[in-house]
């Protein structure tokens, strides 16, 4: 039976996320867990999260895979595509068959065709008080729509992302949302820089560099972004990252 197993996975995912939210957690680490859960629970082949910055421009912050194609598919949606639409309309965008959307999003569809792997995509807004602070993207190799149940689950994951961003530190004054978004986005930059340092020092790819950084942070109960910053500043011996 597939169903009970699936329900078990769903509850385990939310229990793990709820546990994370209790501690002094790192927002990038939380979003990284979220996209991994989204891939598993929604049988997606890739997932990613983009957040709007203070200029209301979308920027990728998390991806289930660091391969260049996935990153490019997220990147191009800063300008056009389902994620930008979900972000602007605060509504879910279902694209069961991408091949038919070339007129609407020429650059995005071209990028998907270049990647050659995905046939359908869904975008779910990260909602907050009638606005969107970003969007979650789900890619599937097979064409076809996600069920309403699956989209509801995806929305629940997106809502956890919003809560996570808002609660990362104690909420103070009204400005907290933009401030937290900015912190999360800058955290992403630090992590990319750290991945480069590790990749060069240890002779590994970007995916592996991130896996080692994440493993070290989690194993030692340290904040991912802080470990990344120490890596860039040369305060952390990258030889410590040899195992995962």
């Amino acid at each position, binding site marked *: 039976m597939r169903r009970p197993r699936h329900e078990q996975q769903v509850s385990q995912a939310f229990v793990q996320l709820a546990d994370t939210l209790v501690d002094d957690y790192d927002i990038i680490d939380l979003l990284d867990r979220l996209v991994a859960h989204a891939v598993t629970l929604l049988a997606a082949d890739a997932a990613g999260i983009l957040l709007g*910055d203070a200029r*209301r421009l979308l920027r990728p912050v998390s991806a289930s895979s660091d391969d260049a194609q996935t990153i490019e598919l997220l990147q191009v949606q800063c300008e056009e595509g389902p994620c930008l639409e979900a972000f602007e309309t605060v509504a879910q965008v279902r694209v069961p068959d991408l091949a038919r959307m070339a007129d609407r999003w020429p650059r995005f569809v071209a990028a998907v065709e270049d990647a050659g792997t995905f046939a359908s995509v869904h975008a779910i807004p990260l909602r907050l008080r009638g606005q969107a602070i970003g969007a979650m993207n789900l890619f599937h190799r097979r064409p076809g729509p996600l069920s309403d149940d699956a989209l509801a689950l995806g929305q629940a994951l997106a809502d956890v992302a919003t809560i996570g961003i808002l609660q990362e530190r104690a909420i103070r*004054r*009204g*400005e907290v949302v933009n401030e937290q978004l900015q912190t999360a986005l800058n955290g992403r*930059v630090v992590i*990319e*820089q750290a*991945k*480069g340092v590790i990749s060069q020092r240890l002779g590994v790819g970007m995916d592996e560099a991130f896996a080692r950084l994440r493993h070290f942070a989690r194993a030692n109960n340290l904040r991912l972004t802080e470990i990344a910053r120490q890596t860039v500043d040369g305060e952390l011996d990258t030889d410590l990252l040899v195992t995962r």
Partner: protein
Amino acid sequence: MADLGTVTRTLLGIIRDGSDDHALAQQICQACMDGLDVDGAAISLLTATASRETLWATDATAELLEDLQFTLNEGACMEAAVTGNPVLVPDLHHSTEIARWPIFAAAVAEQTTVGALFALPLQWGAVNLGVLDLYRCTPGGLSTTQWHDALAAADTAALMLLGQRTAPGSDDDGDHGTTAAAWLDHALAHRAEVHQATGMVIAQLGIGAADALARLRAHAFVHQRLLIDVARDVVDRTLVFTENPT
């Protein structure tokens, strides 16, 4: 895109004419004064070696605020610099704020008429360039719109200053204006590959992140290529930086 703030729009419209850090900081401070209803602004650079330089202060009070904080080693700006988070003090005379920085608050009360302070870090990943400080004589917080604009302005100002400090070659070259503008193109400056390549060059040359970015930009400039393409070559390991400038 949607609702760009007044200050951010002004900053994006500033024509880069080969002016130096100080002139650029002056323009940024002025845009903040015009658009954010503040009485003064200052930009100070803070380097890893704990040295600092105030690039521009709009008036004597703004300059004094910077000096006091660096001398006393406490205050909103120092906290923003250390934590990398914005520090907002809508009422500097409030007891909780005084408790936060007792010596600084006392000195400000004694020597100035400043009532509110807002300190915004200027950063690019692990690079902390410095802080944009804004002050008001009357206590009161920034409105949501102003806050939104202030954050976006700080983000843009950080990219502008970083672009200025890492810009390659002579400013007389006609191409340079294009390069500088391209750097400010948000989508380009925030490409993952640019950050990853910066990290790789940090490790290849044993230098800091700002210097690594400068080397990448210099290479792109000399070879008349886009920064993103140079970054991709570095990530793909087809381009490796060595001690000798390329």
